[in-house]
C-alpha cells in the first residue's frame, strides 16, 4: 500500500490537497469569484445560489457550511468574498477561521467596486499560492484518514457489490482509528432499523429517529409520502422491489461499525469512528456536506455512471456494473465488475479501492479531478 502523504495543518489534521479557496458568501459576490476563477484556473472558486434572505434554519446551514468548507483540511488558504450586507458576513467567517490557515475576507461594499474587490482577492491569491507551493507533503497515519461514502446513479450492482466493498473499506478506516461518514438521510428510510441497532447509545438512537421523523413530517406537510418517489421507475426496472430493499443496499456502504452520532450540514465529527450526516441525497449537495464535515476524500459508488466531482475533495468513482463501466469508462476510477461477472470476492474489491484511496490521498488525481469536475450545491432545508 502506498504510504499516506499529506499537508499538515496547524490543528494536526492532514490535507490530501492544498487548495487556495475563494468562497463567495452570497450570490451578489459571484462575479468577483468567477473572474478570479478565469484568471487562476488552479484556484478553487465556489459561487452561491443564495446566501441571503433565508429563514433561520437555512441561514444556519449556510453559515456552518461556509465555515466547514473553509476549515476542510484540503484547503490550505481561504478568501471569503461577500457584498457586505448579507446574512453571513465574510468578515465573521474569516474571524472564525482564526489562525488555522491563511485567511482573508473581502466585502465589495468596502472596496468601492467589484473591480477593486477583485484586485484585493487577487493579491491574496497570489501570495497564498506562493506560500502553499512551498509546502511539502509529509507522511501521515491511517488514523488521520477522514473519508465519506456515497452512492449515486446506482443500479442493482451497487447494492450487491460496490456498496459492500466500500463498506469493508469504511470499516478498515474506522478500525485504524480514522473517521468515516455516510450521508443522504432521506435514503435511510426502510433501513433505519439497521442503523438504529448500530447506534453507539440511546442518545444517538434518538438523534437518528428525530432526523427521520423530521424528514417524514416535512414531506407529510406538503401532502407527500417519503416513499412515493422511491424506488424510482428506473430502480424498479433494475430489479429493486421496495424502498426497504433499496435503502438496505444503500446503507451497506457504511460497513458494520458502530455509529457515533449524526451531524447537521456543516457540523464536523466530534471524535473518531463512523458518523452519519443528515444531508441531502442530491449528489453534489451531499458531497458538499461531506466536504464541509471535513472529509479528505469521497468513495463514490455508481452503477449507471456519473461524472460528478467536488471543488474540495477528490471523488473516487467505483463501479461493479459491466454496463456502467463500459458506458462511462472515462469516469470510473476503480472497476470491480469482476465481483459480479467472475465471482471475485468483496474483499478483493475492497483491497483495490483501498489501494487507490491511498494513492489519491497522496496526490494521484481522480478522473473527476483530471476532467475539472467541481460541482457544488449548497444543502438547504427543502432539498432532499
Amino acid at each position, binding site marked *: 500500500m502506498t504510504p499516506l502523504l499529506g499537508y499538515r495543518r496547524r490543528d494536526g489534521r492532514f490535507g490530501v490537497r492544498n487548495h487556495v479557496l475563494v468562497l463567495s458568501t452570497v450570490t451578489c459576490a459571484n462575479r468577483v469569484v468567477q473572474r478570479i476563477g478565469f484568471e487562476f484556473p488552479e484556484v478553487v472558486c465556489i459561487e452561491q445560489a443564495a446566501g441571503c434572505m433565508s429563514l433561520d434554519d437555512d441561514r444556519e446551514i449556510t453559515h456552518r457550511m461556509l465555515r466547514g468548507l473553509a476549515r476542510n483540511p484540503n484547503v490550505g488558504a481561504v478568501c471569503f468574498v461577500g457584498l457586505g450586507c448579507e446574512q453571513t458576513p465574510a468578515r465573521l467567517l474569516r474571524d472564525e477561521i482564526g489562525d488555522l490557515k491563511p485567511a482573508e475576507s473581502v466585502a465589495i461594499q468596502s472596496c468601492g467596486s467589484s473591480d477593486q474587490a477583485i484586485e484585493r482577492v487577487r493579491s491574496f491569491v497570489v501570495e497564498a499560492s506562493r506560500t502553499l507551493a512551498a509546502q511539502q507533503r509529509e507522511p501521515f497515519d491511517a488514523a488521520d484518514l477522514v473519508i465519506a461514502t456515497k452512492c449515486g446513479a446506482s443500479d*442493482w450492482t451497487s447494492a450487491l457489490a460496490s456498496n459492500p466493498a466500500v463498506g469493508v473499506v469504511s470499516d478498515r478506516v474506522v478500525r485504524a482509528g480514522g473517521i468515516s461518514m455516510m450521508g443522504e438521510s432521506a435514503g435511510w428510510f426502510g433501513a433505519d432499523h439497521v442503523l438504529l441497532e448500530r447506534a453507539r447509545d440511546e442518545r444517538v438512537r434518538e438523534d437518528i*429517529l428525530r432526523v427521520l421523523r423530521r424528514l417524514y413530517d416535512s414531506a407529510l406537510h406538503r401532502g407527500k409520502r417519503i416513499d412515493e418517489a422511491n424506488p424510482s421507475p428506473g430502480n424498479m426496472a*433494475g*430489479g429493486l422491489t421496495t424502498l*426497504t430493499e433499496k435503502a438496505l443496499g444503500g446503507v451497506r456502504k457504511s460497513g458494520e461499525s458502530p455509529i457515533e452520532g449524526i451531524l447537521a450540514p456543516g457540523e464536523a465529527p466530534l471524535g473518531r469512528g463512523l458518523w452519519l450526516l443528515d444531508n441531502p441525497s442530491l449528489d453534489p449537495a451531499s458531497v458538499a456536506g461531506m466536504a464541509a464535515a471535513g472529509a479528505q476524500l469521497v468513495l463514490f459508488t455508481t452503477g449507471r455512471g456519473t461524472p460528478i466531482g467536488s471543488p474540495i475533495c477528490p471523488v473516487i468513482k467505483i463501479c461493479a456494473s459491466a454496463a456502467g463501466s463500459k458506458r462511462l469508462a472515462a469516469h470510473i476510477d476503480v472497476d470491480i465488475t469482476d465481483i*459480479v461477472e467472475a465471482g471475485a470476492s468483496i474483499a478483493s474489491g475492497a483491497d483495490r479501492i483501498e489501494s487507490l484511496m491511498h494513492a489519491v490521498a497522496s496526490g494521484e488525481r481522480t478522473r473527476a479531478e483530471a476532467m475539472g469536475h467541481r460541482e457544488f450545491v449548497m444543502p438547504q432545508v427543502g432539498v432532499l
Partner: protein
Amino acid sequence: MDSDESAAAARTAAAHASPRRVLAVDPRDNVANALEELGAGDRVEALGRVIAVRTPVPLGHKVALAPIAAGDAVVKYGQAIGRASADIAAGEHVHAHNVASLFDDWLSAHESLAGRR
C-alpha cells in the same frame, strides 16, 4: 424436431450442463439476484440449494430460492425487504407483482418511539 424445439432442447441441455449465475448475499436469504437473464427451466445454485427456474427473471431481478407463503417475509441481505402478497414458489420471479412494501409497518413501529418531537 423443428428449430424452436431444437433450440429449447439445446437450452435445456445447456441449463443442465451449467447452472445460470445468481448471487445470494446472506445465508438467511430466500431470494437471490440474477446475474444473467433467467428463463423457465434454467437451473440455479445458491446457498447450497439447486432450484429450477419457473418464470423468466430479468437481469438484476430476484428469484425465489424457497417457497414463500403469502404474508411471509421476503429476505435479502438477511433482512426483510417486504412481505409476499401472494404465495411464491421456489424458482419464481420475485418483484412488485408478488411483494408488498413494509413501509407502513415502519411508520406504526416507530410511532411510539418517534412520537416525541
